């Protein structure tokens, strides 16, 4: 137990180090943007009619702490980020944490939902197709999963929109019905969300499923070819029992291992799908922040949060792997 706690602690520390490196990358990017918050703020004031001088900019910089050295500013940004505090956006002039708030959790829930969808399809189908020798089934599955890889999600979203507009006369956009959009959370609002969320979950899950199917199939084919499976068959174990207890059980570890990267891929698709479906969550906020207003504070916060959720998932899968795979578990305890 003690060793296990130590293992967890080491993994957590490594995850933190990863986050620190990520924050350095993200923060440097934010800094590379021409013009800082003070200039932007005062430029805005300028458009409101008040004249500003260089001294004003300097004073504003000092007020915002922008005159401190890079590393100090990074450290304080990082310290804030770990507490979920990202300061104010200098374009929107609102607190970023408040702005993101529930949007972050909804986005994460949608992405995790599509991850769950992807694997609940990919695991059974992948296992069956790896075990089956039917060439028609295998080739068509291969084709479908390649199509999933090649067809960008935004195209799928466009197609679905097209069909729904032509045949149902309604556009399947947004995450909430108008009456709930700004309403406080309630059971009805939640149900309304569920009614709208299936579409983004489905679209995001589409290519995730294709990837997951590839992974599961490849891992399963590898395991099925191994000697221990033949040996188990030689002991008289057959059929589903053989499939699930032997190769499937052993392919599970690497599958768990790949969850973090799948989430990464889903996050890649999120902004664009969000744009098409005009969802009010983080992806489209990121787009707004970048394309329309060059809001580097908001963009940095979002990228950091997305990466942090991937790091968290990676950490959890490592722990899970240690629990389910005796090889990892024993190497920790020894």
């Amino acid at each position: 137990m003690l060793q296990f706690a130590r293992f967890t602690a080491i993994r957590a520390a490594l995850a933190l180090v990863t986050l620190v490196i990520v924050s350095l990358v993200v923060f440097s990017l934010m800094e590379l943007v021409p013009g800082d918050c003070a200039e932007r703020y005062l430029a805005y004031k300028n458009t409101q009619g008040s004249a500003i001088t260089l001294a004003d900019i300097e004073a504003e910089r000092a007020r915002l702490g922008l005159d401190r050295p890079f590393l100090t500013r990074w450290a304080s940004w990082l310290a804030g980020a770990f507490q979920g505090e990202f300061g104010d956006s200098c374009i929107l002039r609102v607190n970023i944490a408040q702005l993101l708030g529930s949007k972050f959790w909804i986005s994460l829930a949608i992405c995790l939902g599509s991850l769950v969808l992807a694997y609940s399809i990919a695991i059974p189908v992948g296992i069956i197709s790896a075990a089956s020798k039917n060439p028609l089934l295998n080739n068509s599955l291969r084709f479908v999963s390649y199509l999933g890889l090649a067809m960008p999600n935004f195209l799928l979203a466009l197609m679905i929109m097209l069909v729904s507009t032509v045949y149902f006369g309604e556009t399947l956009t947004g995450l909430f019905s108008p009456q709930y959009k700004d309403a406080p959370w309630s059971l009805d609002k939640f149900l309304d969300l569920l009614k709208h969320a299936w579409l983004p979950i489905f679209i995001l899950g589409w290519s995730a499923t294709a990837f997951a199917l590839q992974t599961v199939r490849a891992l399963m084919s590898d395991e099925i070819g191994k000697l221990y499976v033949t040996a188990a068959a030689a002991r008289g174990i057959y059929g589903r029992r053989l499939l699930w207890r032997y190769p499937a059980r052993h392919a599970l570890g690497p599958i768990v291992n790949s969850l973090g990267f799948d989430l990464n891929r889903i996050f890649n698709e999120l902004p664009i799908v969000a744009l098409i479906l005009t969802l009010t969550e983080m992806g489209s906020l990121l787009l707004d922040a970048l394309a329309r207003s060059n809001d580097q504070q908001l963009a940095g916060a979002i990228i950091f949060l997305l990466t942090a959720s991937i790091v968290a998932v990676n950490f959890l899968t490592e722990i899970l792997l240690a629990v389910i795979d005796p090889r990892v578990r024993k190497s920790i305890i020894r």
Partner: protein
Amino acid sequence: MTAVAKDQKAKEAYFTASQRQLIWARFKKQKAAMVAATVLAMLILSGLFAPFLAPYDPTIAGRDKDYLNGAPQIPQFCDKNGCSLRPFLHPVTRERSIQTNFRWVEKINDDERVYMQFFVRGDEYKLFGFIPGDVHLFGMEEGYVHLFGTDSAGKDIFSRTLFAIWTSLQVGTLGVVISFVLALIIGGVAGYYGGMVDSVIQMITDAVRTIPSIPLFMAIAAFIPPEWSAETRFFVITMILGLVGWPTLARRVRTHLLVERNQEYVLAAQLCGASAGHVIRKHLLPSFTSYIIVDLVISFPYMVLSETALSFIGLGLKDPVNSLGVMLQNVTKADVLLNYQWYFIPVVFFITLVMAFVFVGDGLRDAADPYAEARK
């Protein structure tokens, strides 16, 4: 030559075949990959010769101002007046007036024929960027032909599609080359030195790999000053794609190097007195170049997909550079979805291009793995 000698020769060819020849031999056996390779070759050729194959300039210069948002025209051989050996079109006039509620109404004049011509002189272009020319594969006696219709500015979608394929290929190639050079340096250093250097580089690579790449692209691309020209933008976007794409490749390079470096044949070469440079050039590089090529082909479609996504949301390439993402920028609007479905024709080509790359990459990967056959 006797049959035995021939047989012997074939056997010898097998045993002395280079890694590349073996991969090619195994690749040829896979039907799907071979079909994909043929399709891919055709697409690459049509992209290369886009200026010649496309009847019109894809930019605003080649617009047909009388046929905005026009439907595809398909040249025919026969009509009510009989058949002809040369394909022709009926001239179309479009009108918009108070009588038609100010909507465009097409009138097809099916008594007249406009014949198609081949190898016609038209808009000037530069083939491969430097060979000037103005001969196009086909065109009309008078007026225009739009196989895939036109867009809202009257630009020929067929011509734009061909040029978009060319752009996608350029973006993919450049992006892959840039990320490959980075990967080779970073992964090479990690793999060659090993130890502490390797651990630190691995940690950084893994951290960068965790950042979702499209949001990262977006963050970087959003800060390209809008006043930069489309060409500069093209190069910068491609650079960004390359810069963000290196970690995965770097990891592969490192793994290849680490594995190969500890092989006994390297030790054998060293014991024979080979210098480090000789070992790297003559033993290490040849042993994994074929695998690296496979990796490059596999990562190619992701570059193209990223570019499309980026351009689609307006952060990537911009007009007059053509790419699928640029062409699809406006199609989210409901009226486009409903009325101008031919905007989606390029999508078919695009999906074919990406699928062909994925299939070829997969086939190459299987062919490069000497144990793939045994596992079947």
